[in-house]
């Protein structure tokens, strides 16, 4: 049994213990521990790649946690989670390195918060047991709350609590749906289980599916964030310290879309069939709306936050078009957004550290003083705009193409593809608008005359900042130039997920009692023995 997954998940907690042992005053040591631990986690996580089979779960561990309740510490990684996990482990050392100057107070607490956050994020990406997923999902919340609340800006209290409450609304509803499914699965199989496979094979009635889907989707769409549930994001981004914004944008938002793909969509095909058009429309509205609102922002971080709304709109649209191209595109856009927006926030952090303002009108002409920085920002800007050759393009292209061409795939749900062309067209409009606000941002900050006297002495990127930016830049190029690295792992998993979705959808919803996929008569035998688990051949008489 490969221990890679529990190791990378729990390694940050080891770092927490180390931090607790080291005296508070040793800030540098704490930073060292943080960077060292996260870097180690990254290196260990790279081991996952060896012999990786994207279409199945790799390196699975399944430890009993509360077996009588059907709860297992069950981790696994497949093509869908692979790159998100690597993105997470990759970002963490970068983020910690970026905070050396920004976070000078309560360093120990900060490192601990980030490490706990990493554990939460990795655990949630890797979980194959919904209870474990939920626990990690919630574990993410508190450190982020602290990161925003302690090291944040002026309105950090408001932003932090808004962040938590928004997330809690969804996650509590999700908990209920989760419990409901857990009970239904018990009714169908006679066994208590939170296992992902059980839940995926569980078929509920249309009404139940709809309610559960709404609960799941709400939780995830708030996280995404999907219009109109997005308003926590600008506040959280603006108030969070750079590191918080980066983690938030690059990884936390991905949980929304990851959750949709991993849980909400495969679990409830009939509800998806019903809701997909609404989700699609909300997504494209989000794309256009986010772009337009971003254009009006005077605050750089807010602008980028709204751009996230737009970019994540692409993701949701891609997911709910339910064809391999669009879903691949959504997955890819998740990665790309992680890199480009993360990079943008890191860049904003650089100038924020120098000027302690994020207002666009305070800047202008910085290129003269900071050419390397300008180049960095330009690359991230262009990556965000979706320029081919940089990270943003492939995802957007695939989403638009997938949306536009959705009619090619027979998923058995006509409503999903009904407006495909129109949606694709509006979505493509988002690409145009993306250029509008991002170039506006770049021009306002970097181009034009250097008029503000406060900006006349700004130093260019330091070596450390360069080290922070370099991996992000490399990833931006890598994602743009050679997407096969990533898609070759994502694609099989996506194809498999969609095939499973299609199969489950074809099996039809349950009529009155829940049943498992593959078993037609759902009810457990009268003597309480569980119905046969899905996929197992019926026992034959010998």
């Amino acid at each position, binding site marked *: 049994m490969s221990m890679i997954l529990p190791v990378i998940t729990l390694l940050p907690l080891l770092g927490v213990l180390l931090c607790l042992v080291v005296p508070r005053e040793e800030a540098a040591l704490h930073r060292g521990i943080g960077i060292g631990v996260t870097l180690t986690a990254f290196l260990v996580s790279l081991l996952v790649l060896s012999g990786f089979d994207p279409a199945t779960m790799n390196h699975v561990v399944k430890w009993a*946690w*509360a*077996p*009588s*309740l059907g*709860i297992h510490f069950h981790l696994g990684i497949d093509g869908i989670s692979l790159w998100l996990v690597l993105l997470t482990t990759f970002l963490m050392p970068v983020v910690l390195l970026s905070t050396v100057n920004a976070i000078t107070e309560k360093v120990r607490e900060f490192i601990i918060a980030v490490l706990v956050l990493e554990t939460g994020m990795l655990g949630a990406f890797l979980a194959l047991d919904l*209870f474990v997923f*939920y*626990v990690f999902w*919630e*574990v993410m*919340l*508190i450190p982020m*709350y*602290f990161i925003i*609340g*302690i090291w944040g800006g002026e309105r*950090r*209290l408001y932003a*932090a*609590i808004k962040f*938590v*409450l928004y997330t*809690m*609304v969804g996650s*509590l*509803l999700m*908990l*209920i749906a989760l*419990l*409901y499914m*857990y*009970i239904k699965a018990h009714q169908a199989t006679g066994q208590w289980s939170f296992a992902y496979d059980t839940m995926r094979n569980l078929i509920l009635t249309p009404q139940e599916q709809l309610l559960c889907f709404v609960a799941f989707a709400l939780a995830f769409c708030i996280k995404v964030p999907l219009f109109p549930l997005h308003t926590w994001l600008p506040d959280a981004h603006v108030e969070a310290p750079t590191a918080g914004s980066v983690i938030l944008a690059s990884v936390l938002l991905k949980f929304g879309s990851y959750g949709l793909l991993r849980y909400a969509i495969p679990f409830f095909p009939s509800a998806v069939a019903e809701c997909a058009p609404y989700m699609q429309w909300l997504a494209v509205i989000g794309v256009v709306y986010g772009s337009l609102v971003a254009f009006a922002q005077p605050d750089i971080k807010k602008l980028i936050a709204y751009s996230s709304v737009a970019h994540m709109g692409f993701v949701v649209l891609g997911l709910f078009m339910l064809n391999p191209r669009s879903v691949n595109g959504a997955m890819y856009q998740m990665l790309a957004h992680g890199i480009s927006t993360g990079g943008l926030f890191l860049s904003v952090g650089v100038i924020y550290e120098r000027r302690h303002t994020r207002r666009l009108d305070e800047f202008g002409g910085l290129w003269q003083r900071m050419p390397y920085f300008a180049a960095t920002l330009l690359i991230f800007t262009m990556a965000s705009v979706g320029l081919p050759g940089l990270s943003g393009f492939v995802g957007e292209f695939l989403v638009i193409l997938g949306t536009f061409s959705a009619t090619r795939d027979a998923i058995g749900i006509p409503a999903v593809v009904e407006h495909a062309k129109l949606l694709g067209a509006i979505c493509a409009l988002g690409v145009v608008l993306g250029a509008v606000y991002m170039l506006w941002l770049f021009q306002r900050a970097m181009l034009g005359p250097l008029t503000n006297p406060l900006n006349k002495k700004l130093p260019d990127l330091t070596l450390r900042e360069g080290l922070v930016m370099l991996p992000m830049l490399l990833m931006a190029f890598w994602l743009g130039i050679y997407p096969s690295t990533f898609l070759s792992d994502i694609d099989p998993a996506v194809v498999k997920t969609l095939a499973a979705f299609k199969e489950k959808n074809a099996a039809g919803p349950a009529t009155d009692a829940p049943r498992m996929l593959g078993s037609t008569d759902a009810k457990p035998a009268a003597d309480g023995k569980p119905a046969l688990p899905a996929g197992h051949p019926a026992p034959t008489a010998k």
Partner: protein
Amino acid sequence: MTFDVADLQNSAPLLLLTVAGLVLMLLDAFSRSKLVGAPYQKKMPAETSEAYPLPVAGSRGYLMPVTVLLLLGILAVVAWLPGQIHGDHGVFMYRDMLVLDRFGLLVSGICIVGAILGVMTAPAFLRAHGLEMGEYYALVMFSLAGMVILVMAADLVTVFLGVEIMSLGVYVLAGMWRKSQRSAEAAMKYFLVGAFVSGLLLYGIALVYGSVGTTLLSEIRSRAPVFASRPLFYIGWMLIFVSFLFKVAAVPFHMWAPDTYDGAPTPVSGFMMTGVKAAAFAGLYRLFAVTLGDSQNALQAYTGWVHAAYGIAILTMTLGNLAALHQESIKRMLAYSSIAHAGYLLIGLIAMAVVGDSARGPLLFYLAAYTVTVVGAMGVVGWLSRDLRGGERLTLDDWAGMGQRHPAGALAMTIFLLSLGGFPPTAGFFGKFYLFRVALEKPSLLPLVLIGIANSLISVYYYLRVITAMYFRAPAPSSEPASEPLSSTALSVGVLIAALLVLGLGLMPEWLANLCAAAN
């Protein structure tokens, strides 16, 4: 009339608690002097603030360890006794007045653990506020004895006795801070309402007795279908119901609770919020979930108490949380929050009636998780809010920046608050999870669960407000000296144990969950 010697063994926790209480009283009486060390002064001379004499340990310092040891011993007995129960049913004793079963022992255990933690966190507080009295320990013991009677009661007589013995001790404890007007007021209010409700309870018992002709719960259970439709029985039963709802501080019988919890000395508040509530829930369980209505005999269909409980659960959760929302005082906020938690527990009780025995585990687990958490939280409140000039600094403003001033305490408080708010991986989360899980088994309880969830959300807001104050806000600039946390090993250890229990139960809930589920 025969007397079974085995009864002595089976009722050992009760007897031992009583004896221990007496012993402690004697020890206190034979301790040499009364209070040593200065109680707080009315005014603090500003120029001598540094030389201000801190209260020093009194000669009763040894009482706390003795009490803890005694309680641990009793806990060991409680842990040993389940081995003496054979079969599924409990062992009846004292002519069927009491019953020894796993349920009763588990709740007794919860009460005792809560009391141990409470006792560990109390003396530092008491000493600092000049109320180090040996009676405290004895009264806790007596109250505990009352709780044990209540949870073991198999007869309305013992129910009444248990309630009264438990309450009498707590009345006194609530008012033991004699120099504090608030404490006196708290005690007065608690006593008045409590005694009033005792009257209702007694009257209710009388009516039930009159209609059924017996006070034995098992007999009532078998005869109830015949009498259930009689208004006399009905009203009597509802009066009993009401008096227990009062004890658990369910809305609208809760109104004493915030005032009392707020005014009573903090460790006592903690004791009331946990022990009393746990015992009262055990009483509700015995009287209603078991005697009147599990889903099998569907007696609840006749008495309809589940409907009432349904409405009251909703009201309790909602009003408790809403009122807690804007509290400035942390202690009072916790008081309201404990009301809200009574609402969640009522869901468990209703589930017990509607879903069946599978709800017992969640109910008990929630009770345990809640007890550990609240005792810990109140311990921290007592710990961190000491004001050198007397009284306590309880407002959020006072607690601003606590994360810096007292990181350990603030961290512990954070853990407790997160547990109360139901964040994993804490005991509170698992408790809610477990409880909602069972409630969801019946669609009719879905609204209750949804309201519970909505309330959790509200509660997250005010729990986080405290965390926000502790970590995100700088201390309010003020000429007044900040609160001066107590320094006491026992206190720290007590809080530490509570915090570890909260985390431990969250991370490894199964053993306790299984224990609770099996406690029939």
